[in-house]
């Protein structure tokens, strides 16, 4: 919350490029043109999947980075949306499946996720730090076991299969290129929204609450309401990611929302860096590439060890994740041209 007031008209007119940033423009062009060079596998299984998990980690980054609330329940929120798509839409598991059209299913699924997220937030905002982590972990674990043992709603261990992405405008949105652009669209929107939101009044207030809740309370802000609303917003992001995730897999089962996946999302966010919304996406790409190709590098027996070691190395060298790593390298690059000799 800046206290300097500037008279109208004194603001130097920025051109649009400066406002958006040259880096963003180049990145956007590169991502839009990416399907020209990439195979179908890289489009969906790497890029699309990374963006889905990037948005999930982004919803965690919103809570942890701006609100100081570490959550392990993001995959649970996404799972609620995914299950809602399976239950309200159509599936081939012969359980429920109301067969609603996708354009009613998606808003309902995302709303269900957002409301659940706000509820989880409401339960956990009165705690701090490690206790928030424990409460959200408990919620994630409980949801996992409930889904695994409830047959009436969640169809138990098998979950739901045969869920298809919608076909509209004559396009099957699960085909590689459309699906990639769908994921890219969601990722870009989420990224822009979080970036914009972080500079809005609400975003500034949230960061101030993170830094000093007592002071904000003394100033007359309703701290709990702000935090719960942040959970609600994070729930919208996670819910959208959950919808894409169920279209991506074509199925959802308790394994989709397991505790290991919850921890994966935390790892993605931490590896990428929690200081800037681009971090979760960087982390997602690194982690997904590792998980996909480690088995080719070291064989089937040790590949999880390799993944763990690489992630450990990143955090060891740079507690801020990859973004922090970049911040450390940059000064050296800038000075490189000034140094003489080899």
């Amino acid at each position, binding site marked *: 919350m800046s206290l300097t007031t500037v008279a109208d008209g004194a603001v130097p007119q920025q051109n649009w490029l400066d406002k958006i*940033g*040259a*880096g*963003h423009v*180049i*990145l956007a062009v*590169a*991502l839009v043109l*990416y399907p020209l*060079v*990439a*195979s*179908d*596998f*890289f489009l969906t*299984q*790497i*890029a699309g999947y990374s963006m889905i998990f990037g948005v999930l980690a982004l919803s965690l980054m919103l809570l942890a980075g701006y609100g100081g609330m570490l959550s392990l329940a993001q995959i649970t929120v996404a799972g609620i949306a995914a299950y809602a798509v399976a239950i309200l839409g159509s599936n081939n598991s012969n359980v429920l499946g109301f067969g609603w059209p996708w354009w009613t299913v998606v808003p309902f699924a995302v709303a269900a996720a957002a409301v659940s997220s706000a509820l989880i937030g409401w339960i956990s905002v009165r705690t701090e730090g490690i206790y928030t982590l424990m409460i959200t972990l408990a919620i994630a674990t409980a949801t996992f*076991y409930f889904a*695994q*043992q409830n*047959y009436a709603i969640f169809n*138990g*261990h*098998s*979950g739901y*299969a*045969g869920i298809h992405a919608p076909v509209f405008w004559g396009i099957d949105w699960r085909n590689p290129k459309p699906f990639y652009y769908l994921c890219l669209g969601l990722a870009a929107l989420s990224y822009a929204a979080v970036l914009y939101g972080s500079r809005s009044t609400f975003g500034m207030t949230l960061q101030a609450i993170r830094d000093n809740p007592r002071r904000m309370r003394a100033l007359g802000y309703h701290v709990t309401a702000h935090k719960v609303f942040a959970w609600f917003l994070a729930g919208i992001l996670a819910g959208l990611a959950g919808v894409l995730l169920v279209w991506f*897999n*074509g*199925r959802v*089962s308790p*394994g*989709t929302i*397991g505790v*290991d996946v919850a921890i994966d999302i935390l790892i993605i966010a931490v590896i990428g860096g929690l200081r800037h919304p*681009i971090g979760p996406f*960087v982390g997602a*790409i690194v982690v997904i*590439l590792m998980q*996909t190709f480690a*088995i*080719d590098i070291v*064989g*089937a*027996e040790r*590949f*999880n060890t390799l993944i763990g070691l690489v992630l450990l190395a990143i955090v060891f060298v740079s507690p801020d994740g990859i973004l922090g790593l*970049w911040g450390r390298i*940059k000064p050296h690059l800038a000075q490189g041209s000034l140094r003489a000799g080899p």
Partner: protein
Amino acid sequence: MHRRTLLALALFTGLTAPSMALAADDTIKIGLLATFEGPFTVLGEDGERGAMTAVAETNGTVAGKKIEIVKGSSDASPDSAVRAARKLVEQDGVKVLVGPLSGDEGLAVKDYAKTKPDVTFINGTSAAQDTTLRNPAENFFRFSTDGAQWMAGLGTYAFNDKGYKKVATVAEDYSFPYTQVFGFMAEFCKAGGHVPSKSWVPIGNKDFSSVIAAIPEDVDAIYVALGGADAVNFLTQYQQAGGSAPLIGGSITVDQTVLTSKGKLKDVLKGTPSAGPTADTNDAPAWKTFVDAYEKQPGAFPSPSLFAHGYYVNMKATLLALDQVGGDVSDGGKKLREALSKLSFDTPTGKVSLDKNRNAVADIFLTEVTEGSDGTLLNKLVKVVPQVNQTLGIPEDEFMKLGAVNRDNPSCP
């Protein structure tokens, strides 16, 4: 500004990694999908040993081409199995894939197979009934039998020879144990037995006290279809709770992964009848040859588990069919699939052929746990049930009337 530009460039170059390296003409790629992570890791590794035994038999070549095995790993969840299968097919470009290991994975990979008609899928050891019985995929073959077939002869044996009239069941809560319980009860109920209580527990359950409490006092025996650590945990806790009812074992309850576990289970397990695709004391020469070849694999068990056997049989069938078509899968695998459909060959456990749903018809072994001369536990062969088909010898229309396997079907309280 400048920093972000560079970051974007770095990201972009990282993402335009080389796509699809095509196999050279003198090699043939075969995907191998098993559980190399998660609760079934030990089983997945033994499955790999079995598959590699088949590859070693042909010296790593088929039809003059070098075999290149590309491994994919799942954690027994359907999502991860499909993801691993996608990587093998779409990134590594395999045209032939052997796997997966577990029941629900098999159902998911079968669904995926339907979207890739020019790739040939051969099962690993997944044994859910509906992988091949209902809505089968034209390009999914199973040379290992399903979980209901594995139970052939056990229900009748329990009722007639052991004299058990009332049996409670305890099994894990997913498609494979449903299939096993179905196979056991199909015979047991027909023979006149009753199953008053069925307990379904989640995979990886640690505390069985409530399950043990729910088992009726007056049952003659307990049928247990649990795998690996779940079986060990249940049996230990049942013994500690003072349970004394004799056991009947599902196929993976009394396999080597459980029999080699340390502890006091020996006395509980001794004399447990079971049935499955293998028997440790099978003295057929073909089986002995297979065991010797399997022992050469690193980290082998004293006797191959049914996962080693299943992956071996499926890989063997794959290599035989590939040999018949000269290793040629350039026609989208059409010739290969014809060869596979007609294939009939002698495995270490007898003759195997396929039915119209591409599911195996094979011999099943009725066994009983006994102590070997060196103190280790073994599944002693009681009798061989020859050439069991997927409908367990019941006419097909009658069998289909029994309905799909689930928690409540079949039922004979």
